[in-house]
């Protein structure tokens, strides 16, 4: 009973982590940017969906669409406000751009977070679930929306896989992550590839944020922990490796769920952090890192 409960809950949580971390790792793989406003974008999308479906009363489907659009919009805003000016700036030495982008995206994330807190208060918000009701599966009563969450995550990841492996545009993105100079030599504009990646990222982060809002609820306090968990999953899996992130998301998701059920919810994040330290010590490039 408990075993099945951990299995089902862990699966849904892990699927969410996986979706959140995939976009994060994609951006790093292609443009070398670690986007520390990640959590804020997820929460922003969720809060937009919550406000549209609940406050304006447009229903869960339109609300979710508005949320996703917000995710994409915030993603582009991040790129044009906090990333691109620094990448192009002649005043900042190349070696220091990394820390500048980290600091700028961090600040941008705080700005989004505070704007949400100001406009919509700090209270936790639960997005209207698209599917209501409870299903009893393997003797465990689970909200139907939890299965929906896991399904949407995997469908989204599948579409990402299709996009990257089967379309011309996706292959160009993949190529850019391997060798940016080579791609420009083939006559593909690198900046348009960055735009594509940030659009994909916004979609993924938006979907993940809304699902999280339905599943666990979000508040402006979730911004920091969300960014930190995406960061740790991505490093655990190996920076830039999408499949590594997926596996790492499941490792972290199940570790957390099992700890929460078997020991105490207070210890929830500790085993995952310990694992991360051990991996960093033994294999700094992550489980599936290329470097």
């Amino acid at each position, binding site marked *: 009973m408990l075993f099945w409960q951990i299995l089902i809950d862990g699966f849904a949580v892990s699927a969410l982590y996986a979706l959140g971390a995939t976009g994060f790792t994609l951006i790093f793989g292609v443009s070398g940017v*670690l986007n520390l406003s990640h959590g804020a974008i997820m929460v922003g999308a969720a809060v937009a969906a919550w406000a549209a479906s609940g406050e304006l009363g447009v229903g869960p489907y339109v609300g979710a669409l508005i949320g996703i659009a917000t995710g994409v919009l915030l993603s582009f805003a991040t790129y044009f*406000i*906090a990333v691109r*000016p*620094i990448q192009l*700036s002649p*005043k*900042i030495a190349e*070696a220091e751009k*990394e*820390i*500048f982008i*980290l*600091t*700028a995206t*961090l*600040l*941008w994330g*705080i*700005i989004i977070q*505070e*704007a949400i*807190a*100001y406009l919509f208060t700090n209270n936790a918000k639960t997005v209207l679930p698209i599917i209501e009701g409870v299903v009893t599966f393997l003797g465990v009563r689970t909200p139907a929306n939890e299965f929906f969450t896991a399904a949407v995550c995997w469908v989204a990841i599948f579409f990402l896989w299709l996009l990257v492996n089967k379309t011309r545009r996706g292959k160009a993105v993949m190529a850019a992550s391997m060798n940016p100079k080579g791609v420009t030599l083939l006559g593909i504009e690198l900046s348009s590839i960055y735009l594509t990646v940030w659009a994909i990222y916004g979609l993924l982060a938006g979907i993940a944020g809304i699902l999280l809002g339905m599943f666990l609820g979000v508040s402006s306090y979730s911004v*920091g922990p969300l960014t*930190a968990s995406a*960061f*740790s999953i991505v*490093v655990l899996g190996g*920076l830039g490796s999408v499949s590594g992130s997926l596996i790492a998301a499941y490792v972290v998701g199940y570790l957390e769920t099992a700890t929460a059920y078997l020991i105490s919810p*207070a*210890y929830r*994040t*500790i085993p995952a*952090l*310990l694992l*991360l*330290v051990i991996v*960093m*010590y033994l294999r*700094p*490039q992550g489980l599936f890192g290329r470097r």
Partner: protein
Amino acid sequence: MRALPSSRLFWIGLAAFLVAMALPLYVSGYVLGLLTVAYYTAVFAMSWDLLFGFAGEVNFGPTFLIGVGAYTAGILDAQFSPGISVYLCIVAGAFAAVVGGVVLALPALRVSGPYFGLTTLVAVLMLQNFVIVAASLTGGEIGLAVPDVLSIDATTNYWIAFVFMAVSGAILYGLSVSPIGLILQASGQDKVQAGALGFNVTKHKLAAFIVSAFFSGLAGALMVFYMGTASVGTFIDVAVAVQIIIAAVIGGRRTVIGAAIGAIFLIGMGELLRPLGELATLIVSVIALAVILFFPDGFVGMLRGGAKA
């Protein structure tokens, strides 16, 4: 030509120093209390700048070192007071921070770039979890009440913090312009070349880590005995680390003094904008982002009038 801008900086510094000396005569105890916190934060930011600006290591976990120092001092005092002197607790806190710094640095220096950053971030999260879980010893989420304080007089506390900031600032600045600082800067910019010139890069980075840990821990421990309490929210939380990093970057990295200016600016602005409520943090973040985007050399860079440092 170089003498002119740097002398301007010198005069501005001297003026700021004199103003700070005269302040206790004119302003209320509340403002002094605020500045006391700002001065301790300035030491946190300067220690961080030594590690990042010179050694080139992005330490996301300055609050690990601060927290270890603060909590060690606080717990010792809470457990053994009045049998133990406050100063002994402070020294123990600084020492514990150095030990914590070495423990953190040895595995962390094996990795570089974002991985180093993440290791230090994880250290902060672990410490935070530990403090919350070991609540009987540390006071958990409520915070640890410390029986002793340095002084109950705002002016005395102000002077302690001010002198401490001035002395640590002078030492850190002196270190940064010394040959050691130059070697650190070289290894931060090109590790391989610095190594090829015969400098032991790892040893110097470890030394920078220890110095940074010492001052962070000392400042943390002093701040505990100023506030009379230690809590996760004031010493360890990632938000505190973020504030320190932002202070150092907007003040002007690789300058040490800039970090102090940035810290005092951040805390002062936060207080000035307090009537705006929730908007205060938003506005401060917007200003900080604008500084980073348009004046990457920070406030010190502006004061130098754009002269190439």
